[in-house]
């Protein structure tokens, strides 16, 4: 009867053993020690193994909680800056309108992404949108080039669009973001890349849980002139008198460059905010997952412990009853 009870116990353990944490353990190099500890016929895993796993999961939970706090504080710092910079691009859009569907020969897609990972899906979204823009603007005589800011987009785009990449810029956030740094960057891009239209892809910061992929278009002065002449949205640009400078073209050139640096500044700040917000929510769900895993492992641990106690008792009692006769 004791053997039947033992067999029943063994069968009850079987579904437990097939659950996830324990099979993972089986596949780990701890498997040989499992074999040593379990005599044939009795299948239970050592409590030590479960305890080790619980310790590591608890540590991971602490780390992800700390990362969430760090991201929250960084977000607070950069959010005020991003909100203050929102007024910067509005005058340009009010004057020059927004023409993402302008048909131009040389498109340049500026993809803004983060350097560090563990921030959810925002970098993949930016890369997908950039590739979408590339596809949208492909055709005879049209070409699209990439300028990449940030390691994560570089890793994704280098794989299949290596020949289309013009510039890669990383380590943007080593020093706190400021306008001087971004304007130097914009200058570099404008000097080295020929463009008719610059399309800046970034994640606009709505709120801590929502980031909207956005594309801002900056047109070169020649295209602006062309669109103004053909009427439509920029039709009344000609009605503006242009003061100063030798020619209207010179002023429009300065205007386009200034617009690019202002829009870049806002885009970089918004993307940084989105990165921190996404990291906060990613780390939050990760700590919650770790908590769930810890609960499950605790149950397993208790069950294992109780089962081994029961087994010992059974052995003792059956040994005693065998002696009695």
């Amino acid at each position: 009867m004791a053997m039947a009870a033992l067999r029943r116990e063994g069968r009850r353990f079987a579904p437990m053993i097939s659950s996830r944490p324990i099979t993972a353990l089986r596949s780990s190099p701890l498997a040989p020690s499992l074999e040593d500890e379990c005599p044939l016929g009795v299948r239970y895993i050592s409590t030590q193994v479960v305890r080790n796993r619980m310790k590591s999961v608890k540590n991971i939970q602490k780390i992800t909680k700390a990362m969430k706090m760090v991201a929250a504080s960084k977000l607070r710092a950069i959010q005020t800056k991003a909100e203050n910079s929102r007024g910067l691009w509005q005058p340009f859009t009010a004057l020059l309108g927004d023409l993402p569907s302008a048909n131009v020969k040389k498109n340049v897609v500026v993809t803004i992404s983060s350097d560090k990972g563990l921030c959810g899906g925002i970098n993949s979204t930016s890369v997908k949108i950039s590739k979408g823009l590339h596809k949208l603007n492909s055709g005879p005589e049209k070409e699209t080039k990439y300028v990449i800011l940030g390691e994560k987009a570089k890793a994704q785009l280098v794989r299949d669009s290596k020949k289309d990449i013009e510039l890669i810029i990383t380590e943007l956030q080593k020093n706190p973001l400021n306008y001087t740094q971004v304007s130097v960057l914009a200058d570099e891009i404008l000097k080295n890349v020929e463009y008719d239209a610059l399309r800046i892809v970034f994640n606009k910061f709505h709120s801590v849980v929502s980031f909207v992929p956005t594309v801002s278009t900056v047109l070169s002065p020649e295209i602006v002139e062309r669109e103004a002449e053909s009427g439509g949205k920029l039709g009344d640009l000609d009605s503006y008198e242009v003061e100063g400078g030798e020619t209207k073209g010179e002023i429009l050139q300065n205007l386009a460059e200034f617009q690019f640096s202002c829009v870049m500044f806002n885009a970089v700040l918004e993307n940084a905010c989105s990165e921190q917000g996404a990291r906060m929510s990613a780390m939050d769900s990760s700590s919650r997952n770790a908590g769930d895993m810890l609960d499950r492992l605790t149950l397993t641990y208790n069950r294992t412990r109780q089962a081994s106690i029961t087994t010992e008792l059974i052995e003792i009692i059956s040994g005693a009853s065998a002696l009695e006769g």
Partner: protein
Amino acid sequence: MLRRASMLLACRPILAARARPFSTDLPAAPSADATFTEAWTKVIPNMDPPKTPLSFMQPRPPTPSSIPSKLTVNFVLPYASELATKEVDMVIVPATTGQMGVLPGHVATIAELKPGVLSVHEGSEMTKYFISSGFVFIHANSFADIIAVEAVPLDRLDVNLVQKGLAEFTSKLSSATTDLEKAEAQIGIDVHSALNSALTG
């Protein structure tokens, strides 16, 4: 009954599409570039098209038939919006062609600014800022957008540092060899002499 059902179905997507405005941004205008969204959905049907700045901006009022009494000024810097849709009587901006006064009803203009003093006149009070170049757009509907890189109120400027800077850049110009150094020194001189005249004049 079918008509009611179809009305309900039509209402719900519209409610969902009218996105909640940003908590901190200007209220969003629901307009978006239709040609762009169409072209996008044709080529990439699986993904939502990205938003464009037009959907985040409040539309400007059209040109009124009579000249309004006040000028609406937006004065923005990379780090802050100094003045946001403030109604004033007049602003004087330091354009590259000289000090330019802007009154309501000014003709639409795009002007580049040089380092100098910007003064905002509201009733009897006048606020002066020293700005380090930028642009000013004056629209036909009496909206003026002033975009500058740096702006400081005049009382934050130190006379001695200005004089020292001016002397330093003048000496740099005389000892400059390459065109780049000469240009940099010249810019320094321009800014400091403008600062000087702002403080004295």
